[in-house]
């Protein structure tokens, strides 16, 4: 447990967070989270798909205050359903999933979008990268060099290009797809992002947060499908607004010291997996070697 007298930096917090969550015998340590807002038509297929490729994982659909039957469909397809009381936006929904995972003691979280664009086949590849300790976060990238698997409309491509430049500049690392929502996180990354996760287009800013926490992020190429049915939540005018907002937020995130430590302390205690008062439990926290920046 971290004794906080002087303010620890984000990276200290990240490095000291236990790498393995505490789960009961026989429970999965992998959680697949699927944020969904009015995706009743797609969510069933997405869940079935994920179950097919990752039968060992628990699946959590986060129903972000949908007005259709998303929650019921997801429940019927056998996933856990976390129902937010009202629409929080993608960031709030994903963060709810992260908090859930931290609280329930999962060690790895894979995030897949609820619209069916992400190919569940890649879950295993992302998971393997993180489980082998090659990175704290693995991101399914649509634009890895030399392998263009997906061509979004021009405006969108320009936007992504811009953010990729911005984040590359801030983190001083090549970033190809800063907006990809297909990600796999280990518990350290989870810990950081469960505390402090941005709202709209959260992926861009999250990259900066992860960088500040000195967590290692890798991108691996994935194929994306076009949306199965329904419309994306992004329209033209709004995308300009988001552009500005995310740029501002990202720049501020780069300047800021880190998440509020008081929140962090509080949540560290709240985590059932914070192991000190569970000495009677047989599961121990093992930091495996070879990890740690």
């Amino acid at each position, binding site marked *: 447990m971290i004794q906080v007298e002087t303010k620890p930096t984000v990276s200290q917090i990240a490095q000291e967070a236990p790498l393995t969550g505490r789960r009961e015998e026989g429970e999965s340590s992998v959680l697949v989270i699927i944020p969904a807002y009015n995706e009743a038509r797609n969510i069933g297929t997405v869940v079935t798909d994920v179950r097919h490729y990752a039968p060992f994982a628990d699946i959590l659909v986060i129903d972000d205050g949908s007005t259709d039957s998303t929650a019921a469909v997801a429940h019927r397809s056998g996933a856990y359903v976390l129902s937010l009381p009202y629409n929080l936006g993608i960031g709030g929904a994903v963060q709810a999933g992260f908090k859930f995972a931290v609280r329930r003691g999962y060690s790895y979280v894979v995030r897949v979008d609820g619209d069916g664009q992400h190919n569940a086949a890649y879950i295993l590849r992302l998971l393997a990268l993180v489980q082998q300790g090659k990175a704290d976060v693995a991101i399914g990238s649509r634009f890895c060099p030399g392998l263009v698997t997906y061509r979004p409309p021009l405006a969108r491509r320009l936007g992504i290009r811009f953010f990729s430049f911005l984040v590359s500049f801030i983190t001083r690392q090549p970033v190809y797809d800063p907006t990809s929502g297909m990600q796999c996180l280990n518990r350290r990354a989870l810990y950081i992002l469960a505390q402090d996760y941005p709202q709209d287009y959260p992926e861009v800013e999250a990259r900066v947060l992860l960088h500040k926490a000195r967590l290692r992020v890798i991108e691996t190429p994935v194929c994306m499908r076009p949306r199965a049915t329904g419309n994306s939540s992004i329209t033209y005018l709004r995308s300009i607004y988001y552009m500005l907002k995310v740029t501002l937020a990202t720049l501020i995130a780069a300047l800021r010291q880190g998440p509020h430590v008081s929140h962090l302390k*509080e949540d560290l205690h*709240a985590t059932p997996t914070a192991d000190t008062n569970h000495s009677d439990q047989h599961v121990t926290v093992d930091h495996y070697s070879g990890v740690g920046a």
Partner: protein
Amino acid sequence: MSLLIITLELVRKSRLREEYSLLWLVGAAVVFLLSVFRKSLTALARLLGIVYAPSLLFAIGFLFTLVILISQSVVISALASKNRDLAQRLAILEWELRHHISAEPAASDSRPESGGHLSRDGEERER
């Protein structure tokens, strides 16, 4: 003057919390006093090199309005993030409630912590 009275009345009826009324009260009082005591206003204006004294009055009023607006934005932001945390926590607790009752009694990970956590939240609020 009337602004001063309105503010006080709102606070008295507890429609406005004291901590948020403070800026309104101070602002209204300063503008009010300066407009009653014209000499002090002229003196202050001359001190600051303002030729037309009443414009100082507007400047002060404007300044207070700005400060109040910013403080409102800060309060709203804090509320919004607390609101978000609450919604997330509600959803998680709801899930735990549902699942502990029905399917898996073994997975009761969070018994002792939830109680301790509530009290900690209380302390947080006191601060």
